C-alpha cells in the first residue's frame, strides 16, 4: 500500500501568514519569492521572515522570553536552527558571567556606599586614588611622589586622588570624553618628589639647571597628553571601521544612533534602568561598552513597507549582546579595575621584554632609582632659590623656563625613573584593543547567528486533511 499523503505548507491552496495576515495563492508567483513555514502541529502557517522577527522581539523581552518559541495556538515548540558556534556560546557565557560579577560589584557598592557615607566618602575615594596611582605609576614612583605616609603628601594629592575614581567612572559614560589616563597621572609628572631619608641625596644646583629634553623616548607625559585626543580619535575611527566591516554596515550610513544603557537586567527591587538614546555624528563613537547601532534606514534590508523597518540583524545582534551585557555594576567595576589592568599588562610587557631587547628599548625600561649609586634628584623647590647676583628679571625668566620645562617634560626625577607608567599605558592600550576586538567578534558572531536562523518546517501530519484547503485533494476512500 502506498504511503498516506502527508501535505506540507507548499500543498496549501491559500497560505495566510498568521503574523502579517498577508495571503498568497498557490498560483500566484510574487516577484521575490518568500519562504513559508509550518512550524508547529496546528494549521497556522507564517512567513519565515515574520516569524523570525516575532521570535527575536520576544527573546528581547524578559517577560515573553520563555514563550518566544511556542506556537500561540497549539503550544508546540518551534525548532530554530542557526549557525551557533561554540565560540559564540563561550562569549555569551563570558559576557553573562561578567554581568553577574557586575551585579555583585553593584550590590557590594551599595553596601560599601552606606559604609562610606558613615566613615567618609572622601576617605574611601582618596584611598582608592592612592591605590590607583600606585598601580599605574608603579611602586617606585608611588614611594617617591606619594608614599604611604599621608603627612608627606603634596597638597594637590588631596584634590587629585579622590577625583581619580570619579573620573574613571565618568570616563566610561559618553558624556565625559576624557581618558582616565589624563587625570591619573598628569599632575604627578610635575610633582616635587618627597624626600625619603637614606635613599636620596639632595644636591643644590648652582647655575646650570638640567633642562629636560622635550623630545625623548618614552615620550614625555605632556607629549602623551597632547597626543592622546588625536590617538584616541584615530583609534575610535579605526575600531569603528573594523566594526562596520565585521557587521556589514555600509560606511556611508549617514547617522547612527548611539546608545548607552546603564541597566540592571531583569526585574527586582533594584531595577535601575537608565537608558538614553541619542543621535550623534558618525565618528563620535565610544569604545567603552556602548554599542553602535545602525540607524533604521541605514541597513541593507529592502523593505516593502515604509512604516515598519524590518529588523536589521546587526541591530538585533547589538541588542542581544547589550541585553546580556549591561549592568551598572559592570560599568563601575570595570572602570575601577582600569589601574589594576594597566599594572597587570605593564608587568606582562616587562616580563616579555626580558626576552626581547627591541621591546625593552621600546618600553625604555631602566634600572629602578634606588639601586643606583648616586640618585640624581633635582627638586624644583630646592633649586629655585633666588641668587643675589642675578637681576630679578633674570630670575623670573629662569623660573618661567624651568616651569615650562617641568610642565612639558616632567621633573628630573620623573625623567630618570623607570617609566612604569609608559609600559602600563602601552599595556592598557593593548588591553583596550584586544577587548574591542573581542567585542566585535562577539557582535559579528551574534549577528551571524541571527542571520542564519531558520525555522524548521513540519508536515501537516496528524491534522484532519478536511481542515486544510489543499491544491490537490487526495483521493478520498
Amino acid at each position: 500500500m502506498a504511503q498516506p499523503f502527508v501535505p506540507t505548507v507548499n500543498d496549501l491552496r491559500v497560505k495566510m501568514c498568521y503574523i502579517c495576515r498577508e495571503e498568497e495563492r498557490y498560483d500566484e508567483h510574487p516577484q521575490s519569492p518568500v519562504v513559508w513555514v509550518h512550524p508547529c502541529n496546528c494549521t497556522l502557517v507564517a512567513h519565515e521572515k515574520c516569524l523570525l522577527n516575532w521570535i527575536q522581539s520576544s527573546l528581547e523581552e524578559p517577560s515573553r522570553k520563555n514563550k518566544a518559541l511556542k506556537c500561540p495556538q497549539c503550544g508546540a515548540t518551534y525548532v530554530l536552527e542557526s549557525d551557533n558556534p561554540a565560540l559564540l556560546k563561550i562569549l555569551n557565557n563570558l559576557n553573562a558571567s561578567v554581568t553577574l560579577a557586575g551585579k555583585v560589584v553593584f550590590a557590594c557598592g551599595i553596601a560599601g556606599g552606606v559604609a562610606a557615607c558613615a566613615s567618609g566618602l572622601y576617605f574611601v575615594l582618596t584611598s582608592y586614588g592612592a591605590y590607583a596611582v600606585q598601580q599605574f605609576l608603579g611602586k617606585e614612583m608611588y614611594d617617591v611622589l606619594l608614599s604611604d605616609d599621608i603627612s608627606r603628601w603634596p597638597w594637590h594629592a588631596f584634590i587629585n586622588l579622590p577625583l581619580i575614581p570619579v573620573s574613571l567612572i565618568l570616563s566610561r559614560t559618553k558624556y565625559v570624553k576624557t581618558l582616565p589616563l589624563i587625570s591619573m597621572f598628569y599632575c604627578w609628572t610635575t610633582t616635587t618628589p618627597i624626600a625619603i631619608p637614606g635613599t636620596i641625596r639632595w644636591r643644590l644646583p648652582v647655575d646650570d639647571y638640567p633642562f629636560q629634553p622635550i623630545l625623548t623616548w618614552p615620550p614625555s607625559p605632556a607629549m602623551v597628553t597632547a597626543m592622546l585626543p588625536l590617538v584616541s580619535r584615530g583609534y575610535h575611527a579605526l575600531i569603528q571601521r573594523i566594526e562596520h566591516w565585521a557587521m556589514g554596515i555600509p560606511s556611508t550610513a549617514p547617522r547612527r544612533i548611539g546608545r548607552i544603557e546603564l541597566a540592571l537586567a531583569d526585574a527586582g527591587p533594584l531595577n535601575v534602568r537608565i537608558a538614553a538614546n541619542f543621535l550623534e555624528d558618525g565618528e563620535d563613537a565610544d569604545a567603552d561598552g556602548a554599542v553602535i547601532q545602525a540607524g533604521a534606514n541605514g541597513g541593507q534590508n529592502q523593505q516593502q513597507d515604509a512604516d515598519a523597518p524590518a529588523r536589521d540583524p546587526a541591530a538585533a545582534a547589538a541588542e542581544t549582546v547589550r541585553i546580556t551585557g549591561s549592568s551598572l555594576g559592570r560599568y563601575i567595576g570595570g572602570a575601577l579595575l582600569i589601574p589594576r589592568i594597566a599594572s597587570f599588562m605593564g608587568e606582562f610587557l616587562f616580563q616579555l621584554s626580558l626576552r626581547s631587547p627591541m621591546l625593552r628599548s621600546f618600553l625604555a625600561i631602566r634600572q629602578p632609582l634606588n639601586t643606583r649609586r648616586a640618585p640624581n634628584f633635582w627638586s624644583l623647590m630646592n633649586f629655585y632659590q633666588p641668587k643675589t647676583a642675578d637681576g630679578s628679571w633674570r630670575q623670573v625668566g629662569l623660573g618661567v623656563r624651568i616651569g615650562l620645562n617641568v610642565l612639558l617634560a616632567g621633573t628630573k626625577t620623573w625623567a630618570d625613573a623607570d617609566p612604569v607608567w609608559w609600559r602600563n599605558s602601552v599595556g592598557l592600550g593593548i588591553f583596550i584593543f584586544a577587548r574591542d576586538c573581542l567585542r566585535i567578534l562577539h557582535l559579528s558572531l551574534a549577528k551571524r547567528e541571527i542571520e542564519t536562523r531558520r525555522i524548521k518546517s513540519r508536515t501537516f501530519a496528524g491534522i484532519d486533511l478536511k481542515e486544510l484547503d489543499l491544491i490537490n485533494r487526495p483521493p478520498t476512500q
Partner: protein
Amino acid sequence: MSTRRLQKELLELKNEGAPAGIQLLKGDDFQSWILSIEVLGESLYKGDKFALEFRFDSQYPIAPPSVTFVVNEQFQAPEHPHVYSNGHICASILANEWSPVLTVSAVCITLQSMLASCKRKERPPDNDRYVARAPADPRRTRWAFHDDDV
C-alpha cells in the same frame, strides 16, 4: 507591516461583520480605532455599552496594541476587578501573553468574555493608587497577573 495588516483586519471586519455585540465606531486611520462592546445574554453588565480604544504603533502586530476603555461624557469604564477607573485593563493578552495571532476582534471577544464572566462589580483593590500615577500608555505598566481566568 502594521498598515497592511490593519487594512486586512479592517476589510475582514467590514466584509464579514464584527462579532456579535461589537461594533466599529471609528476606524478611519491606522493609529487609533474605537469599537463599542456590549455583553450579550445574562450578565452584570446587561444593557451597558462600553467603548474600547485601540492604539497601534508601527511595530503592530509584533508589539501589542495599547487597549483602554474609553472614559468620557458618553462612555465609562466597566466596574470590573481588572479594569481601572481610568480605563486601563489588566489583561495578560495585552502584555506578556500577546501574540500576533490575535486580532482586534479577537481582543474584543476576549474582553467581552472577561466582562461576561464577572461575578462582582468592583474596582481593582489598588485602583486609586494606580490611577494617581498611571502612565498614559498602559503598556508601560508592569502588571502582576493575579489569576489565570482572564
